[in-house]
């Protein structure tokens, strides 16, 4: 039970591992280790790292992201770490990435450590309540602006092409559609008639080539960035699905109806859709072509449903019984079908 307790077992392992990362430091210790909710794709722990160096005592607040036994999304943590490293220090706010441990041995799962951005909130349930609620428009504008900045970046200049598979502008849609269709095929525990209809439509109506191949965060939504009490976005999180592809994939994912937390039609619960799109266009230098965006929005429903059915399978089969696995598919699975029907003009 060490994995879920996070008590002395993990603290000791973490301390021993951190000593190898800080060979010049003395009296290395881990304090206040506690697990926090950071999504179902990685376990997230925060802690204080104390050590002595050159006669002085130092303490840093850090976050450990560790692979669970089974994840909502199966990804390579080195790619996620690489994305943090690529954007750290740019106009896209991300926590500083510190160390990567791809070997599951030392920490009980492949893991990496980031700085903790303190005094912020990511949970939609809290962002739509005081003191954040009054900053909703500000958060929304910055959210879509940052997304545009991600898409303006050159993935080659950031060193991400190589670790991330390169893709031609005309091939991005096909690769992603095939990937998520395969997951739906493999993981769905029950027939998915709405998603099957959506998939047939998507294959028959390919979108135009990407205007530019860029970095796609792939889970850019309200809930995956940290906001401080003044409404400033301080860190974009959860880069585990990041890849090189068509930036419209990100725009469409963020506009997906399932992220309309406030049920008032605002994109991501924050801004009217046209305003969100206009801000993104201005920041990215790209155009949200209506035909292409429609294709990517329907695609985002298939992708979403593939994630929810995977979560359902993990929970059902017992490989991950975190209640968020059951909750995500119950809360979002049917909404995802409804969103697809709406995009296909079939929602009564």
């Amino acid at each position, binding site marked *: 039970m060490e994995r879920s307790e996070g008590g002395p077992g993990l603290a000791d392992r973490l301390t021993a591992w951190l000593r190898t990362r800080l060979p010049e430091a003395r009296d290395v210790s881990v304090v206040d280790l*506690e*697990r926090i909710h950071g999504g179902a794709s990685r376990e997230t722990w925060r802690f204080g790292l104390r050590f002595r160096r050159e006669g002085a005592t130092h303490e840093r607040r850090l976050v450990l992201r560790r692979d669970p036994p089974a994840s909502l999304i199966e990804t390579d943590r080195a790619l996620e770490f690489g994305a943090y490293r690529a954007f750290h220090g740019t106009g896209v706010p991300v926590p500083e990435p510190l160390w990567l441990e791809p070997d599951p041995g030392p920490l009980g799962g492949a893991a990496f450590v980031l700085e903790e951005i303190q005094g912020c909130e990511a949970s939609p349930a809290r962002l739509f309540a005081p003191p954040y609620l009054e900053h909703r428009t500000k958060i929304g504008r910055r959210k879509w602006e940052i997304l545009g900045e991600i898409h303006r970046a050159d993935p080659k200049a950031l060193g991400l092409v190589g670790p991330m598979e390169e893709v031609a502008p005309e091939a991005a849609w096909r690769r992603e559609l095939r990937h998520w269709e395969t997951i739906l095929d493999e993981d769905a525990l029950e027939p998915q*008639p709405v998603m099957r209809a959506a998939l047939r439509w998507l294959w028959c109506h390919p979108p135009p080539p990407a205007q530019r191949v860029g970095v796609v965060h792939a889970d850019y939504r309200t809930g995956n960035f940290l906001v401080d009490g003044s409404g400033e976005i301080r860190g974009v999180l959860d880069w585990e699905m990041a890849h090189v592809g068509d930036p419209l994939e990100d725009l469409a994912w963020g506009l997906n109806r*399932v992220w309309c*937390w406030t049920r008032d039609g605002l994109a991501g619960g924050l801004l009217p859709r046209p305003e969100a799109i206009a801000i993104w266009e201005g920041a990215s230098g790209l155009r949200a072509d209506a035909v292409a965006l429609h294709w990517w929005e329907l695609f985002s429903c298939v992708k979403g449903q593939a994630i929810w059915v995977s979560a359902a399978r993990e929970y059902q089969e017992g490989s991950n019984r975190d209640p968020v696995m059951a909750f995500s598919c*119950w809360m979002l699975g049917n909404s995802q079908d*409804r969103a697809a029907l709406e995009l296909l003009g079939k*929602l*009564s």
Partner: protein
Amino acid sequence: MKPDLAVVLETTSQSLLLELGPRFGEPYGAATLGIQALLLQAVREELERAAARRVEENRALRRLFAGAGAAVADPELRARLEAAAQGEDASLLVSELEAGNRTLRALLVELHAHVETREGEAARRVEAGIWRELADSTERRRLSIAPF
């Protein structure tokens, strides 16, 4: 069975959410408790309608299949649709209704893909009926916790 299942589930959920959760010192435990409370609320909502919505949907699918023959060119698929149309739910146990529903929904996927490739009025009529049923099916499954 008294107290009612719905009352027990609602009360337990509220207790987890409002009484026990806030007393939980550790954030992961508190958040997990909150999610579990919301799961119980969803269970309460689904429990009430679990058999009814499956019976309703299985009947709707069988009616759809019964009227689809003229739009289906493949004799083997037509035969399976006819057989399914004549079936009925032998038990009201949710697990058995669910098994029947899975079989019928898998057949619906096949029928949908087939009529999409067919021309003519009969195919369009069946296709329109399928879309109506898909919209109805999402309505039957809606949970109050869902964002859309």
